């Protein structure tokens, strides 16, 4: 049973990562920076619970805030570049964050041992859940509480005027500008919300895996982040959830029986999915 709880934890955290990319993709910006905000949320929350002794919930909040602040700061220069140049710029930003953590050392002595992130070795002993006696099932429920909250918030955004404005900017910027939509405000706010969601995801990730290092937040994670909304379709949040379940539960775990062939099939199935259904699993016109 613990295995399924663990899988559910992974699905939950990856859903948050996918949702953070979903909201930015709605505005037509393809962003490979979500793994970077994820990393910032993870290290911030980890350092607050381990080095400063905070409780987990305010640490997650702080992770979300730092993710949002960084995303806001990235959002403004990102406005100067469009389309595929934004892909490269955000990719470089994500890699820059990873390299920053690769070189980041901040250790504090607690008792006789030193804790904290150490550059290449990573950040060990993020043991909030273990020290406070949480079971795997309780951790899973905690993670999914956040996932459901974020999905509900994004669903509500989608149904409101804000969602319509986001999609308008995504479909045709010039037309949106001509009816008075403030492009800067919309794009930067979408990036900020995405950064906050990624920060929450990262904070939860750091605590359930207990050991994070720079290599966890590489280009592959960034491409997974945009793969989920693209494969799931941009019409609603359930598309992203379906894509995460498809990729994590079906492709990664379900194909485990195929042993070595699993990794080959993974890439091949993504290519096949994009050829057969380019608009995504839940894509197409909204009902």
């Amino acid at each position: 049973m613990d295995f399924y709880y663990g899988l559910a934890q992974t699905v939950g955290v990856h859903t948050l990562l996918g949702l953070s990319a979903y909201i930015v993709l709605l505005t037509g910006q393809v962003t490979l920076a979500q793994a970077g905000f994820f990393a910032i949320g993870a290290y911030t929350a980890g350092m607050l619970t381990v080095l400063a002794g905070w409780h987990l919930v305010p640490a997650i909040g702080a992770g979300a805030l730092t993710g949002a602040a960084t995303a806001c700061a990235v959002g403004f220069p990102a406005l100067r570049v469009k389309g595929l140049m934004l892909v490269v710029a955000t990719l470089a930003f994500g890699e820059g964050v990873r390299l920053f953590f690769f070189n980041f050392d901040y250790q504090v002595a607690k008792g006789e041992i030193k804790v904290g992130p150490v550059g290449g070795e990573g950040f060990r002993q993020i043991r909030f859940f273990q020290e406070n006696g949480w079971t795997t099932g309780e951790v899973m429920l905690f993670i999914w509480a956040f996932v459901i909250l974020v999905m509900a918030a994004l669903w509500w955004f989608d149904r409101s005027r804000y969602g319509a404005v986001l999609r308008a900017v995504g479909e045709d910027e010039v037309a949106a500008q001509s009816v008075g939509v403030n492009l800067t405000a919309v794009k930067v706010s979408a990036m900020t919300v995405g950064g906050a969601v990624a920060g929450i995801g990262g904070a939860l990730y750091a605590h359930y895996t207990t050991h994070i290092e720079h290599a966890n937040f590489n280009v592959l994670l960034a491409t997974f982040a945009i793969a989920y909304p693209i494969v799931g379709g941009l019409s609603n949040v359930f598309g992203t959830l379906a894509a995460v379940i498809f990729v994590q539960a079906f492709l990664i775990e379900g194909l485990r029986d195929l042993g070595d062939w699993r990794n080959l099939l993974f890439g091949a199935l993504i290519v096949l999915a994009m050829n057969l259904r380019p608009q995504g699993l839940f894509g197409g016109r909204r009902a």
Partner: protein
Amino acid sequence: MLDFLQAVSDGVLFGTTYALIGIGFTLVFGVMHKLNLAYAATSIGGAYAGLLIFQVWAGAPAWAVFFCAFLGGGVLGWVVYVTCFHFIPLSNPLAPLMATVGMLLLIDEVIVHATAGMPQNYPAMFDDVMLRAGEFTLRGDLLLVGGVSVLCMIVLLALLYRTRLGLATRAVSQQPVAAQLCGIRVGQVNAMTFVITGLLGGIAGALIGASVGALSPLLTAPLTVKGLIVTVIGGLGSIPGAILAGLLVGGFENLFQLYRGVTERDLYVMLLLFAFLVFRPGGLLGPKGGHD
């Protein structure tokens, strides 16, 4: 001063390979207005394909391996076109991008499977030649890398500006509908673009393998990132820009490594990219405001 010159010269010579990768990205973008994220994987895959010649000809000389890599890259380029761009309708810009990511993962995994994950030694030419001028050395194999890259760029530019295929390619990149009205088969031109960039990529991969001495599937990710950085710094769609930017990035990368060490080197390359994006989003030789 000597260290500085040495670092710059080594970096610029190695940067010619980055220039080739950048040209591949920028050519596909210029013609199809789409990004082919599988390009560096095509390059490394072509280089591995070059090693296949040892199966048929045990003592093959290095130039035979390079030629085989050249051909392998072309084949892989065509495969990427058919699987990622041919069947997906143009109205979905995100789907081909994701499909190329899938191909990147697939090519990487095929390489890992075929070689059991072990890095493979790559033959080099002139690796025992060292030109010296006092304490300043120029590695012979790096000079060859630079020379072959320059040759490839000249051939490519001649192809684009002096042949009918090049004319058709430029026509499709500027006005696809008008080109079709003139009787140019857009699908064929796109496929040829991918084959040509694949050929270039195969050579680039072989040259990188030759100058590093070994090939490993781990090379794909950093090469993709550096190639994209070179493309953007040079200006999306501009081949001379990609050439200049490749040399620039190669030189700066080595300088950063000299002054700050290898762990922080890539961080500064990213900062170089951001400096360009803030001050000159169009890149070195692109339009000032940037492409869409």
